[in-house]
Structure formats: C-alpha cells, structure tokens
C-alpha cells in the first residue's frame, strides 16, 4: 500500500515562497491565478498485513509526529491500495 501525505502551511501562516512563485507567475501573464501556497508531498510505502484503515492510522501518526509541525502546518492523508 502507499500512503500519500500532503503537508500545507496553515491558512493563517504567511508563505513567502508561495508569494514569490505567485509573483513570477504574474509576470508570465497568468492573470487568473489569485494565490499560490507551497506545500510538501510524501509518498510512504507501507508493508505488512495492515488493513487500509490501519495503514491510514499509521500514516496519520507519522504525519502528525514527524512530517508536519502542528503549530504551522496542516496535513492530509490518502491511502492507495
């Protein structure tokens, strides 16, 4: 199984990298783009006799304890069987 974890800055936290990308995109003429937020993406291979629910729990724990900092970031987990 594969767990996909998306880590994003909380909406209240300034994202200077996203802002810089947005600025460059504007210069290229993408006038419809109103905002860009940069995040992180992790692909985690999970082995063993785990159900999808258990795999999700494992990935959520990992995302919460290691991959994200709850003070500044949110995360979302998807399981691919």
């Amino acid at each position, binding site marked *: 199984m594969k767990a996909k974890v998306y880590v994003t800055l909380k909406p209240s*936290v300034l994202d*200077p*990298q996203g802002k810089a990308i947005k600025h460059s995109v504007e210069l290229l003429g993408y006038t419809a783009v109103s905002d860009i937020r940069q995040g992180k993406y992790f692909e985690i291979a999970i082995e063993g006799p785990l159900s999808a629910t258990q795999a999700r729990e494992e990935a959520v724990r990992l995302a919460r304890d*290691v991959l994200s*900092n709850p*003070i*500044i970031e949110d995360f979302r987990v998807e399981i691919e069987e």
Partner: protein
Amino acid sequence: MKFGVIVFPGSNCDHDAYHVISKHVGQPVDFIWHRETDLRSYDAVIIPGGFSYGDYLRAGALARFSPVMNSVKEFAARGNLVLGICNGFQILCEAGLLPGALIRNRGLHFICDYVNVRVESVDTPFTNELKSGSVLSMPIAHAEGNFVCDDATLDELRRENRIVFRYCERDGQVTDNANPNGSRDNIAGICNRERNVMGLMPHPERACEDLLGSSDGRDVFRSLAGTLAAAA
C-alpha cells in the same frame, strides 16, 4: 561548572560556542555528540547554530529525534540551563521545549548581517547581568528565523515576560524596519515558563570579540556563568 556543546551532523557553530566558553568564560567545556545520552556531568548545555541534518524536512525537525534530545528534555526538566542559538532555537521549538516555530524569512533570502536587539527581559539566567532596554549588536545568519506563534502564545509570552530579545533600531526603537525576517512582534529570543531554557536567532557566541565586530554577546555568557557560580 561544566558546559556541554551538542554536536549534530551539520552543526557549524559548535566550535564558536566551545571557544567562547573556554576562552571568555574560562570554564571546562565538552563537545557532546548527538548520539550520547548522559548529561549528568554538565551544568549547562548549548545547542549551537548550523544546519543539523541539512535542515531537511524543516529546520531543526530531524535533530529533535537524535538520542541526545531526550536527555536534553530531562536535563531541562531538572531545572538545568539550556541555551539554543539559531539552529539550536529552531531545534528547541521543534522539540517542544519552547513555544512557536521558525519559518522562512519573509524576504526569502538567507540573511547574514549584524542586527540590533533590545533586551526585553533581564529576569533570566542568560540575561541577568544585562540592563533592561539596552541594545546589543549581534550577527544573524539564517533563512528560517521568522518566529510565528498563535495569539494565545504571544499573550502568554508577553504576560509572563518571556520575550527576552526583540529586533530594534540602533536607538532601541522596535520597528518593522528593524525586523530582519518578519518575526511576530519582532521576537528574536524567548525563554520557557521556568526560564531555564532560552532560544534566540542572533549569535551571541559570534559577538564576543571586538575584532569580530562586536563583543556585546559576552554579557549573555557572563550572565550564564554568574548564575551557575551563584548556584554552586
């Protein structure tokens, strides 16, 4: 009085800290490799600047899982002094020993420059020989020094007088212009509730010799050593 300087893979201000303790404080000091776990022989521990684990994932995020960090937590819980400088501050925040987080500078650039900071609290073992409101010149060298925290944490830091240093103009005025990285409330350094753990982004250990541009950082180490001497 014995000091320890923790060394992670990627620490690069460990020797500066060691130099200041041995030369200016004049006390015994050891390097402590991050795999060590016995801190019983130390009175104070410094977590130095650098790029532990290459700043992978987030600055300070992986260092938190090094074996020595559990010992640092216990060491701090027993009331011993822990000073985190730059990457050391980031590690202390990631480890939950200090509140808040340090994110990318608002201007995106890595900043290597002298800044002025105002001493906001002299009620810490690290600043008790300083004058409240005085202005220190110290270098910063970081890309992730932008201190963020939620409103409740900021209120708590203010109420408990735990903001130790704030970025300011040369004359001590705290302005947005003097804020190099976008830190909330111009915060450059804070301490924990028990006041025995302090983290700051500027480098006092690189500001201990006039030849290097400033010796204002010496008073931080003088305070630290004085506190330990008084407790001995």
